[in-house]
């Protein structure tokens, strides 16, 4: 069972009934194990796929629901803020894809690294980032997570192992390979999840990085969040082989239903075990974004509204968790609605606070260009005179 830092789950060795169908757990004991079958079987490439039966607990299901509700609210609020011109520039929204963020987080620790591209707001939240810091950064305020100097595409949280937040498509993957190289170099037993999209999957640097990771058995997991559209270009128009999990050739791959948080969790857990022993693996998350590529893209010129509402009805990640919670009597309908209302309130409060927060000082223009103050001495060979301290 996966551990996350927010909650502890007791590894009670309760006997499981046959894992084919979901078991009903009549008590609301929050540490009891519920076994749920993932929505689809995992398809795999050059590896045996993990089992469809995912273990979870009422606590975990509630956490999934709360986190995803908060993420959904945040993205929709960001939409309104953008239209109100409080957020400028580029704003890439993640609603629809929340299951990837929470599922991944449930399978790993904060010492594992995640690096992603520009659709990073929800991953920042999943890694422990705050709503206030997110909104302040989006609005360019001093209290933002990158002091207002990064913007929507540059959220980072070093202490939780979240390495951003990158604007250039595909450039984060070699960085992710570097993170895993450092993990191997320092002999840590941690992994790196380097995330990218179906559009970036055609970048050469991905394959270069994959080659190096496979060559040196680096603990890198490449996660392709396949939302089927690279901005306005559908995947079948951009890639000769849209089976992204197979494109690693000699690197094993796994295709996962990215709208099912539990399947994502199972896959990430499996991938982490694999990467620590055998080197890189590719995960393809079959997911979907409801908004357009960014706020300047209506999202309906290259796909029909019916498609979007169809996915929303049938595969929405929050609805899936809601149904599971209700089916297992973990919470009532009203409780879930209250949670959503509460999240709405929390998000609105964070926005109000962020709106009041100050803009950066003009002097902040020049801070953090170089690292200062690390005090390396420069000295000549006679050491009688210390020339200078490197600034």
């Amino acid at each position: 069972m996966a551990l996350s830092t927010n909650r502890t789950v007791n590894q009670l060795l309760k006997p499981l009934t046959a894992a084919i169908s979901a078991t009903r757990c009549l008590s609301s004991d929050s540490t009891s194990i519920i076994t749920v079958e993932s929505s689809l079987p995992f398809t795999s490439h050059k590896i045996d796929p993990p089992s469809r039966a995912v273990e979870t607990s009422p606590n975990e299901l509630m956490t999934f629901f709360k986190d995803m509700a908060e993420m959904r609210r945040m993205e929709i609020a960001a939409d309104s803020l953008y239209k109100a011109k409080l957020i400028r520039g580029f704003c890439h929204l993640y609603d629809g894809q929340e299951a990837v963020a929470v599922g991944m987080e449930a399978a790993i620790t904060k010492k594992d690294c995640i690096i992603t591209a520009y659709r990073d707001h929800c991953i920042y939240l999943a890694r422990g980032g705050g709503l206030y810091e997110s909104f302040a950064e989006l609005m360019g305020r001093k209290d933002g997570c990158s002091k207002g100097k990064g913007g929507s595409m540059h959220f980072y949280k070093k202490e939780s192992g979240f390495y951003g937040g990158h604007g250039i498509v595909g450039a984060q993957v070699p960085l992710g390979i570097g993170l895993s190289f450092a993990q191997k170099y320092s002999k840590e037993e941690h992994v790196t999840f380097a995330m990218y999209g179906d559009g970036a999957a055609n970048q050469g640097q991905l394959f270069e990085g994959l080659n190096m990771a496979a060559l040196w058995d680096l603990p890198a997991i490449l996660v392709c969040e396949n939302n089927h559209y690279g901005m306005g270009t559908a995947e079948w128009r951009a890639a000769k082989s849209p089976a992204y999990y197979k494109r690693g050739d000699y690197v094993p791959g796994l295709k996962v239903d990215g709208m099912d948080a539990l399947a994502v969790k199972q896959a990430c857990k499996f991938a982490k075990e694999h990467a620590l022993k055998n080197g890189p693996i590719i995960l393809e998350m079959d997911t979907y974004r409801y908004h357009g590529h960014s706020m300047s893209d209506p999202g309906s010129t290259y796909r029909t509204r019916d498609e979007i509402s169809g996915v929303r009805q049938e595969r929405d990640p929050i609805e899936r968790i809601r149904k599971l919670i209700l089916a297992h009597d973990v919470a009532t309908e009203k409780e879930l609605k209250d949670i959503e209302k509460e999240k709405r309130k929390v998000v609105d409060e964070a926005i109000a606070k962020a709106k009041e927060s100050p803009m950066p000082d003009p002097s902040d223009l020049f801070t953090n260009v170089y690292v200062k103050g690390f005090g390396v001495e420069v000295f000549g060979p006679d050491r009688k005179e210390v020339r200078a301290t490197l600034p």
Partner: protein
Amino acid sequence: MLIWLLACRNCDDKGISVRKGSSFVVRSDGRLSYGLNGRGDRAEHLITNAVAAKEDTAAASTSSKPGHELLLFEALREGLEEEMDRDPTVCVMGEDVGHYGGSYKVTKGLAPKYGDLRVLDTPIAENSFTGMGIGAAMTGLRPVVEGMNMGFLLLAFNQISNNCGMLHYTSGGQFKIPIVIRGPGGVGRQLGAEHSQRLESYFQSIPGIQMVACSTPYNAKGLMKAAIRSDNPVILFEHVLLYNLKERIPDEEYVLNLEEAEMVRPGEHVTILTYSRMRYHVMQAAKTLVNKGYDPEVIDIRSLKPFDLYTIGKSVKKTHRVLIVEECMRTGGIGASLTAAITENFHDYLDAPIVCLSSQDVPTPYAGTLENWTVVQPPQIVTAVEQLCQ
């Protein structure tokens, strides 16, 4: 002390003599304090397999320390090896740096000593192994990324510009990128257009990086050590033709200042600013100029980003005339930026417009004669000084 320019077929003499003390620090006010004049001490032996010289703790004055003689690529290796001994997070990555020993032998012997992970042979994928180095630097490692030729790093431009230079800023100071990117560049001996590029002109606008160019074994080792110790990303420009320069360098440990220029020859009449290989063309021209009665002040600017405007400014205030001799092309080169910087800051002190001698704005041709006409030659420098000093 003589510096032998073994690869130079252009030189009139067998070598270029440069006045230099053996172990001293160049002060930026132009005074040279001479230690032992190495002219009397001939090299006893050539250290071909340079192991880091043990630091001598004796407090004797420097005048009795003869130092050891080595070639520039060995000096780079010595600096690198000392830093790798000192700090276990320093690692090297690049093409053929490990088992092959480096295409210019800078990393020879390091892989057997430190292992394959610490001296990493990468596949030919500049974009991604530079990105990999930057990602590793984000976690706290201190990689030294070697481009086999600086021109190949154009493939990694995105990583160098966006991730290396800008991550410290866009993350609000959360990540520092203590990476060193180094490699040989410049016009070589008929290497062709693509292998004769001067990337300092392309990289100079990237915010957040520092650029230094080494020109002697002494400053190569010192700058390599400083670059590795620096928490900022540093690009160290070496030159293909300077790897076989021989010089006597001190045994004791020393680290040079990344942002300081070097006073090569103090003078009164004109300030000549140069760096890397052009330093030797300038010094050759300086001999002719001295014979003709001029007294040029030669400064090797070393730090290409940021410029050491303190040293340069002091010199301009003294001589009032500036000549820049560089190997970059005229358009958008280091000389162009330096001209702008000096004009903006020291305009009142100039008696004449700044003259900038650069390579021609052409791809470097293969033919030897054409290649010679592409770069600045000593007679052109002499003519320029004469015109400037009229």
